[in-house]
């Protein structure tokens, strides 16, 4: 495709869908980081969580704004019901411990980054113009996730076992999130919107994950063919699943609804 915009209505809808998946994921990821600003194992890592939360909310904002011509962004941010969210399922519930947060940091954040990288040279110009800045900030998130994953994976038997559990659970969700090989996703690749999709993108992701999970003895090949039963490719989620109500109430800012301005 040589034009500056996507060529068909179908492709445009698919791009917008993908942007919403990314925007919602980043919004929720930012909240997950923010939940650990206080109570993280070290003051410094709490500061890092604050910084990453700020980045992710900024990225979410920027991505939502890309949809302003096709939808009411204010409603996207403050007016949706849980079933309308398209975030990656690994962010549906508040992590119960630091191991889960580290798994999210190392693996979910990375999945979003690998997806964004596939859009770095996108034929869809508004996206391409913004992706570089996002990816630049993500380098530090990746370093933080990798350093903590390694630390917990090598800090004794109990720590290793708990890290292993969190990684396996998260990896099952992140690898599934890239989706099966479908015509719709492939059409975006052929149109130059994304450089890869489905299993090809999952393979890129697993290449990046491999060195991270090596200390845990995980063979990433075991995650190359996820079970797609019930998977809805439009939302990249299991059909009928939603983030929990408490999460959505906080994400929407329900407590502060009276302060919303036009």
């Amino acid at each position: 495709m040589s034009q500056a915009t996507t060529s068909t209505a179908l492709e445009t809808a698919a791009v917008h869908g993908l942007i919403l998946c990314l925007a919602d994921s980043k919004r929720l990821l930012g909240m997950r980081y923010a939940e650990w600003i206080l109570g993280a194992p070290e003051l410094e890592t709490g500061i890092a969580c604050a910084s990453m939360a700020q980045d992710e909310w900024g990225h979410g904002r920027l991505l939502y704004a890309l949809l302003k011509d096709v939808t009411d962004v204010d409603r996207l941010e403050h007016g949706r019901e849980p079933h309308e969210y398209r975030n990656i399922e690994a962010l549906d519930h508040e992590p119960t411990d630091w191991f889960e947060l580290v798994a999210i940091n190392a693996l979910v954040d990375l999945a979003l980054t690998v997806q964004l990288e596939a859009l770095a040279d996108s034929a869809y110009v508004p996206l391409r113009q913004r992706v570089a800045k996002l990816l630049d900030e993500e380098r530090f998130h990746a370093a933080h996730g990798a350093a903590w994953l390694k630390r917990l994976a090598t800090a004794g038997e109990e720590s290793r076992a708990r890290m292993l559990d969190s990684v396996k659970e998260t990896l099952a969700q992140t690898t599934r999130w890239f989706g099966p090989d479908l015509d719709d996703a492939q059409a975006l690749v052929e149109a130059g919107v994304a450089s890869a999709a489905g299993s090809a993108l999952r393979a890129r992701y697993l290449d990046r994950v491999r060195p991270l999970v090596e200390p845990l003895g995980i063979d990433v090949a075991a995650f190359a063919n996820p079970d797609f039963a019930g998977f809805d490719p439009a939302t990249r989620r299991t059909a009928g699943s939603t983030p929990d109500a408490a999460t959505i109430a906080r994400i929407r800012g329900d407590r502060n609804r009276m302060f919303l301005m036009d």
Partner: protein
Amino acid sequence: MIYEVFARKTRGEPLRHIGNVSAPDDELARVYAFSTYDEEKWFDMFVTPRDRLVEVFNRREPIAPQEDA
């Protein structure tokens, strides 16, 4: 372990001590220094474990080499 953080605004400018972070290893020290001190636009930034700083002298005590106690 405490790491001292050094940075400068432009190439050629002397390194400035800007603070410290507490971290278990070099990797996390780098990450923490970045997230703690990235408010300003630095040209480059370095960390070193505090106990790797070798004192040459200080003005509080005689400059001449001290006798071992």
